[in-house]
C-alpha cells in the first residue's frame, strides 16, 4: 500500500473518525476526537489490512493555543506508517491511555504527564520519571515555562 492508498483506505473505512490534515509533510497525518481515540486505535491495530501493531513514538506538543498528543504508529507486518493526533484544551487537559493497545505507550505517556501536565486516564503508573522525585516547579515542556536562570534575549533578524 502506498501512502496515497493508505490515506484513501483510512478515509473510506473509518467513518470520518480520522480526519486528514494537510500539515503532515511526509507520512499521512490525521486528527482524531478525544472520545474516539480508543476505538480508532483499536481499529487501526486490528484491521486486517493495516495491523498497526508498533508504536514508534508518542508525544505531547504545546502550540501556545492548545495541547496536541501525537501518535506515530507503524505496521511491522504490512509495512505501513501513519501519524494521528488529538487536540486538547490547555485547561484540564486529559487523555485516555493507549497502553492496553500498545504497551510501549506506558513510558511515553508517563513522560508526557510529567513534562506537559497532561493527565493520562487509566494509566497504571503515573509517578515521577525523568525529573527529580521532589520536583515542584511545574511542567518544563510547556511554552510558558522557563528555567529560573534562563534569560530570553530580544529576537533579532
Amino acid at each position, binding site marked *: 500500500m502506498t501512502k496515497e492508498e493508505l490515506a484513501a483506505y483510512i478515509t473510506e473505512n473509518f467513518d470520518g473518525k480520522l480526519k486528514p490534515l494537510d500539515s*503532515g509533510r511526509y507520512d499521512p497525518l490525521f486528527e482524531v476526537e478525544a472520545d474516539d481515540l480508543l476505538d480508532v486505535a483499536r481499529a487501526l491495530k486490528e484491521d486486517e489490512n493495516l495491523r498497526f501493531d508498533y*508504536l*514508534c513514538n508518542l*508525544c505531547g*506538543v504545546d502550540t501556545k493555543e492548545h495541547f496536541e498528543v501525537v501518535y*506515530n504508529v507503524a505496521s511491522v507486518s504490512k509495512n505501513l*506508517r501513519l501519524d494521528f493526533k488529538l487536540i486538547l484544551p490547555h485547561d484540564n487537559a486529559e487523555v485516555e491511555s493507549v497502553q492496553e493497545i500498545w504497551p*510501549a505507550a506506558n*513510558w511515553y505517556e508517563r513522560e508526557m504527564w510529567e513534562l506537559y501536565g497532561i493527565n493520562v486516564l487509566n494509566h497504571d503508573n503515573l509517578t515521577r*520519571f525523568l525529573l527529580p522525585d521532589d520536583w515542584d516547579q511545574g511542567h518544563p515542556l510547556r511554552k510558558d515555562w522557563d528555567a529560573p536562570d534562563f534569560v530570553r534575549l530580544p529576537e533579532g533578524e
Partner: protein
Amino acid sequence: MMAELRTEEFIVNMGPHHPATHGVCRLMLTMNGEKIVKIEPVIGYLHRAIEKICENRTYAQCIPILDRFEYVTSMSCNYVFSLAAERLAEIEVPERAEYLRVIMLELNRIASHLLFYGVTAMDIGAYTPFLYGLRERELIIDLFEMTCGQRLTYNYIRVGGVSKDIPKQFVPQCRKAIKIIGEKLTDYTGLLNENPIWLERTKGIAVLPADLAIAYGVSGPVLRASGVQYDIRRNDPYCIYDRFDFEIPVRPNGDCFDRYMLRIDEIRQSIRILSQALDGLPEGEIRHKKVKDATFKPPAGEAYARIENSRGEMGIYLVSDGSKKPLRVKTRGGSYNQLQVLPQYGTDMLIADLVANFATLDVIMPEVDR
C-alpha cells in the same frame, strides 16, 4: 530440614553507578535468593532537557545539542534531525552529500557495534575483547577526526548536506580500515564462540519473544535477533539506501548469544554497504545551495523522521511554526524501549544473567534520559 528455612524477598539496587549499566541507570531488583522477582528501572539521572533546549535554538544550533542525545552514534543524531528538517522544507540533498552521509552513518554503526562487542564481553567477564574492539574502533574514530575534527560529537551532517568535504586521504584510509575490520571479525568470533564459558553464559539466556518485542516497540538488532525481519533502511527507506545491495541479518532465538552475533553480522553488511558507497562516491556539491544556517526557516508543518541506528529506531518528531526555531523537537531512541521491555521478560533468572541480558540489549542512558 530445607522446608523449615525461612526466606524472604529483599531489594538490591543495581546502580546508579554500576559498571554494567553503561551510564547512570538504577535497576531496583526484588530478589528471592539469587533469583530476580521484579525489576524496576529508575531513570532520569542524565536528564538534560535536550528537547526544551532545542526549542530555544535555531535549527542549525540544535544539531550540536542533539549530538549529546546519543553520543555513541552522534552521526545518526545529526542525520535524523537533518532528515526531519529536510522533509519539512522539502529539500533535495546533492548526490555527493548523500553518499558521504551513508559512509558516515555506516562507519558510525560499525564503531558502535565494536564498542558493544568490547563492553558486552567485559561485562560478562572477558577482558581481551574490550581491547580488540576499541583498537579497531580507533581506526574509524581517526577517520571522523580527519573529516570534522571531532572524535565523539561530530556536528558534521547538516540540514541540506554535510559541513565539510572529506580530505584526500579519506577514501584510501577508509578502504584500509574496513578491510582490517572485516578480517578481524573472524578473530572476534573465534575468541568468544569457542569459549565454553561464554556459550554457557549467553546461549538460551534471557529469551525475548518476538510478539513482546513488537508490543513494546523494541527495534533494531534486538528485534531482529528475535526473528523479526524489520529494518528501517529496507522497510521505510531514507537517504539512498535503496541503491545498495545488502542483507538484513535475522536470527531466530532471541537470546543473548543471538543478540551478540547479530551485531557481528551487521558489521559485515555495513562493510558491504561502505565498499559500494566508496566505489560510487560522485564528485560535486556537498550542501544544498539555498540552505543557510542562520536563516533556515522551514514552512509550518510537522514530520516524523526515523532511521535505523545501531540501537534500533531513532526518530525525531519535528514541528515547525514557520519561524527560525522549531516549535517541538521530540527525540525517540531505541534504548528507551529496550529498557522498558526489560522488566517484562528479565525476571525469574539469576542476577548474573541480568548483567548479560542488560549488556546485550545495548542500552545507553543518554538516549533514555535525554
